[in-house]
Each structure stands twice: as structure tokens, then as C-alpha cells.
């Protein structure tokens, strides 16, 4: 790798700047082809399930995967509902779990905004704006992330508590696990994000 890095103008004494036309343009870097010596690893704990946070989760997951990172997303609590596949309206086996699914519609397309939800008007307008600006929806980003090998890991505890079955979940998710597995991923060097 050859790199000539010129310090910013502000860092140089004025005497050194004399005679130089434009020191800021002298920066020239040759890409280091040997950069990925180690694989970067990311672990996102997807806890909230709000639309804007699902956006953050799926943008980071797909962007990191596109940059060659090994990415794991752990879905827990409110963040678990977006993992339910489209077409499954009511989840749960008892009335309380079903009530939860009635109040908090499962599926990534039904995520609510934390502000200005207005019975779905907020998310509808947000997605309209997104489309106009060429921003992919969380569902599309999640599909791309999956295609790039992002590991989607369901939380066993959330699954049991909410009464959600394996067959309610979208295809391609990993085995449900618990906190010890999540901690092991972090301990192995993954950057943890709680979203």
C-alpha cells in the first residue's frame, strides 16, 4: 500500500504552507487490497419493533453484509413480531397471547412508528416518502440481508412467551436461542447494537 497523507491545512505551521498551491488536494490513497485481514462482526439486538427502528436494524444489517461483515440479528420482545411471516394475522395459543397479536399486528409490514402513528397514517406516509426517495422498506432490506447471508436469530424466550410457533416465522431463520448464545457472539468480538 502506498499512501501520501497530507495533514489538514490547520495542522501545518503557516511557513510550511508557503509555496504550496493547495495542500488539501495532495491526499492520495491507494486502496489497501489486503484490508480484510479479519472479518468484522456485528450483532444487532432487535428489541423495539417500531418502524423507524426496524429501518435502522435492516439498513445496518444489509449495509454491513454488503461491506463484507458477518452479521447476526437477534429478535426479541417487541422486535420479535416483525419475524412473523406475512399472512399470519393472529399468533398465540391462549387469549392473552392472541390479544397481544390483535393489539400489535405481527409482520414487518405492520410495524408502527413510535411517534405519529395515527392508526397507521404515520407509517403509510413514511413509506410513501421512502418510496419517493428511493428508500427500500424494512421488509425489502431484510430480504436482501437474508440473501447476503445475515443470520436472523429468534429469541426462544420471546417465542414461548408470545406463543409464536416456528411455522409462524418467515423462512430462513436460525434455531431459536437464548442469552448465552447472544453473549457468546459478543464475547467472540462482534460489535453489539441494541435497537
Amino acid at each position, binding site marked *: 500500500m502506498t499512501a501520501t497523507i497530507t495533514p489538514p491545512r490547520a495542522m501545518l505551521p503557516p511557513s510550511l504552507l508557503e509555496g504550496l498551491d493547495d495542500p488539501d488536494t495532495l491526499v492520495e490513497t491507494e486502496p489497501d487490497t489486503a484490508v480484510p485481514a479479519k472479518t468484522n462482526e456485528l450483532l444487532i439486538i432487535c428489541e423495539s419493533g417500531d418502524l423507524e427502528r426496524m429501518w435502522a436494524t435492516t439498513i445496518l444489517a444489509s449495509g454491513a453484509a454488503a*461491506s463484507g461483515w458477518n452479521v447476526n440479528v437477534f429478535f426479541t420482545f417487541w422486535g420479535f413480531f416483525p419475524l412473523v411471516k406475512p399472512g399470519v394475522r393472529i399468533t398465540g395459543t391462549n387469549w392473552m397471547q392472541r390479544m397481544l397479536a390483535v393489539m400489535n399486528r405481527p409482520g414487518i409490514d405492520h410495524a408502527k412508528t413510535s411517534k405519529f402513528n395515527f392508526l397507521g397514517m404515520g407509517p403509510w406516509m413514511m413509506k410513501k416518502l421512502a418510496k419517493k426517495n428511493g428508500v427500500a422498506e424494512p421488509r425489502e432490506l431484510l430480504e436482501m440481508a437474508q440473501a447476503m447471508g445475515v443470520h436472523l436469530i429468534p429469541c426462544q424466550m420471546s417465542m414461548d412467551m408470545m406463543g409464536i410457533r416456528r411455522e409462524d416465522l418467515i423462512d430462513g431463520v436460525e434455531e431459536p436461542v437464548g442469552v448465552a448464545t447472544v453473549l457468546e457472539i459478543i464475547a467472540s468480538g462482534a460489535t453489539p447494537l441494541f435497537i
Partner: protein
Amino acid sequence: MTSTEIAHRVDARGLSCPLPIVRTAMAVKDLPSGSLVEVLATDPGSVKDFTAWSRTTGHRLLNSSVTDGVYRFVLIRK
């Protein structure tokens, strides 16, 4: 071995973050090493993003230019 012909074009015009890099990453995956890839984008953030992306992934950013609001990146697949 670097070829001199553009092996693949990614049209990311009108797309916002993270789609330009995601589309490009998905496109280069199956190309042989050394392939030339051209990306067109309109997202102003993609200028810095493609520089960072090529540094992270090891794909080489050969050229970055802008014409009438369309950014053009030429990359060599790692």
C-alpha cells in the same frame, strides 16, 4: 488479472442508502476477481460511501466522477 471491459453495470440512480452499496455488493459477488464494475448513482452520500465501502471490502475504486448530478464509480472486483 484485470480486464479492460466493463463486466457489469449497476444502475442505482434514484436509490437511497443503503441500496447503492447493497445492489453493488450483490452484483459483484458472482463476478470473477478483476472484473470491472460500473455504478451509476444519484445519492450524494454515495461518494463517501463508495470510498469507505471499497476500503472495507478490498474492491478497488478506480474512478469516481460526476456528470449532471449522476455519480459514476468504476470498481475492480477484489
